[in-house]
């Protein structure tokens, strides 16, 4: 694996057109500034880059495979489909790419305590994992509704040595966990690093998370070139806050021939109230430290979101996605629960891969679009995670009772 290029992103201002920024309480401004400066320093530091490289290779199991999905390709009868297998990473998702990068930065900044928010628990588990590896203190904030729904992941985090705080304020889900983590950080910035889970929040998070996740497209571009000598015609990834998608897009943004597609969670339908399709249904706003797109009411209150996928039900999207959507560089499509569940079953049966329900939103779009494309065209679809965690809830969705 070649060393990760952390300088792909020439724009380090924290603004993506009008989006981005640092809309955060004064208490955190100095710390964010320190973090941004530290990141700018360490991304040029050979020692930091070597450490990052070694962790990605030896701990996270990179590079991840770029797998030619021959059966899917044949069955769908159109474009050639390649799957970028982030599900094969240590901890089973793309989240590890980001936590390794941020935790390493935290360590170099002299921090000894990591805090993070988590929805379903994936980012919490990844953070707890890296905290265990570095011997750092770790506290995870998780909405009370989610700790009740995801007991296994709560236990997993505890097993890894983290303390899990059930958050009982607000609607007790992911956005409230972020609020609580930010508040905790406000009280204790000295020794604490807030490890943000997606390409969201105030600068420098969207920038750092994009850079750390860009390993996905750096690899896929090279791997596809080796296999076919070509660029893909289309890259597809699911979008919650947008970290795996921005990482999947990063190395193709300046390649105008490559279409970029983000699959959002439409829940029961983009037009319904039970949705998390931020780009399609949302509007410009300012929340969680960034100007971006959010699901909100007319007054500007953030509204509850819904998706079968706990990893995609966030009422916002990272600022760079808002920018890519606005400029038309990337396209965002809503995939319903039904379509995602069908894709979960489809990829399991055709390819023998149980992929995360989040990732299956991207797979569902591939199923729709591949047959309409020519056979010489290529789609790279990111499988952001593995689906073991979802098996029970998919069974339930299908009305199958599983004894646990």
């Amino acid at each position, binding site marked *: 694996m070649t060393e990760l290029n952390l300088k792909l992103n020439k724009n380090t201002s924290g603004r993506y057109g009008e989006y981005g*920024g*640092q809309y955060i309480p*004064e208490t955190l*401004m100095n710390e964010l500034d320190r973090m941004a400066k530290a990141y700018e320093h360490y991304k040029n530091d050979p020692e930091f880059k070597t450490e990052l490289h070694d962790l990605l290779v030896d701990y996270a199991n990179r590079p991840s495979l770029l797998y030619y999905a021959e059966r899917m390709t044949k069955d769908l009868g159109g474009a050639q489909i390649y799957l970028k297998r982030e599900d094969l990473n240590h901890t089973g998702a793309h989240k590890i790419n980001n936590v390794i990068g941020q935790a390493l930065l935290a360590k170099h900044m002299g921090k000894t305590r990591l805090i993070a928010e988590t929805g379903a628990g994936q980012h919490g588990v990844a953070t707890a994992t890296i905290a265990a590896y570095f011997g750092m203190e770790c506290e995870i904030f998780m909405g009370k509704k989610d700790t009740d729904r995801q007991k296994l992941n709560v236990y997993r985090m505890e097993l890894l040595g983290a303390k899990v705080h059930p958050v009982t304020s607000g609607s007790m889900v992911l956005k409230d966990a972020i609020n609580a983590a930010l*508040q905790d950080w406000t009280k204790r910035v000295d020794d604490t690093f807030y490890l943000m889970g997606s390409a969201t929040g105030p600068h420098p998070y969207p920038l750092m998370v994009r850079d750390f996740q860009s390993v996905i497209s750096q690899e896929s571009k090279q791997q596809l070139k080796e296999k076919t000598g070509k660029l893909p015609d289309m890259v597809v990834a699911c979008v919650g806050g947008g970290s795996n998608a921005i990482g999947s897009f990063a190395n193709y943004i300046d390649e105008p021939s490559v279409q970029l597609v983000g699959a959002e969670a439409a829940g029961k339908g983009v037009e319904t109230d039970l949705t998390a399709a931020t780009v399609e249904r949302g509007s410009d706003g300012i929340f969680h430290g960034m100007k971006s797109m959010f699901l*909100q*009411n*007319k*007054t500007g209150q953030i*509204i509850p979101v819904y998706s079968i996928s706990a990893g995609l039900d966030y009422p916002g999207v990272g600022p760079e996605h808002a920018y890519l959507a606005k400029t038309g560089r990337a396209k965002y499509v809503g995939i319903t629960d039904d379509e995602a569940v069908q894709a979960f079953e489809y990829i399991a049966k055709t390819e023998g891969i149980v992929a995360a329900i989040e990732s299956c939103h991207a797979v569902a779009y591939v199923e729709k679009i591949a047959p309409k494309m020519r056979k010489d065209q290529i789609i790279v679809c990111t499988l952001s995670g593995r689906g073991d965690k979802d098996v029970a809830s998919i069974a339930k969705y299908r009305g199958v009772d599983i004894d646990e």
Partner: protein
Amino acid sequence: MSKLTDAFKNQKAFIPFVAANDPDFDGTVNNVVALAQGGADIVELGIPFSDPIADGPVIQAADLRALKDDPDLPMDTIFDMVKAVRKQTDVPLVFLTYLNIVFRYGYEAFTARCEGLGIEGLVIPDMPLEERNELEPIAEKHHVDLIPLVTPISGDRIEKIAASATGFIYVVSSLGVTGERSEFANGLTDLVNRIRKVTDVPTAIGFGIHTTEQATEMAQIADGAIVGSACVNIVAEYGRQAPAKLTDYTKQMKAAVNANPVR
């Protein structure tokens, strides 16, 4: 000169806070009027937000109560509350809210309505110095002061923030006050002194003040004291009976900020 700055003239200012629509439209109007009657120098009216990241549990709960029956509570309804308040008192008013509420209404439209209703300032905790410029020229045009927050860990940002302040400066007392009172007060004195070197704009300390003793002590350091959660607690506890209690409490606190400290 700004009416807010005026409120600090020749005296220490007491600035209480209540949340709009907690418990309801009339309750809000009565509460604000009651605070004015008790002698509040400025009243801070909170516009409820679904995710008040800078607020503690008490004000979070107030925001939730305010939005419980009507999550879509229109901003115009809150402006109507102010209109009703204005029929009874001309106490200087500031809104405390999060930037998204202002952004969604439109910076121009929002500050124009503030000007029309005599809302003299905005306290927006998620709008730090670096993000003021999109709103500042518009607010200035409509004579609405943007009240900046300064914290004990603002470091070398203190002077920069103070230099561009109008109205008054909100000095955030650290949350971790338990058991460290004298140390904490020393830090605040330094902080306020640094601000005073740069500007004549008055300072008011807020976050965590609830007793008359604390009010007296804080007013020795700064030019005024802001009290949020204690007032909100009165509203939560007494509901429709809150106005009389708020008037009493304000009288005591107003006297306390202008009292000589017992040594």
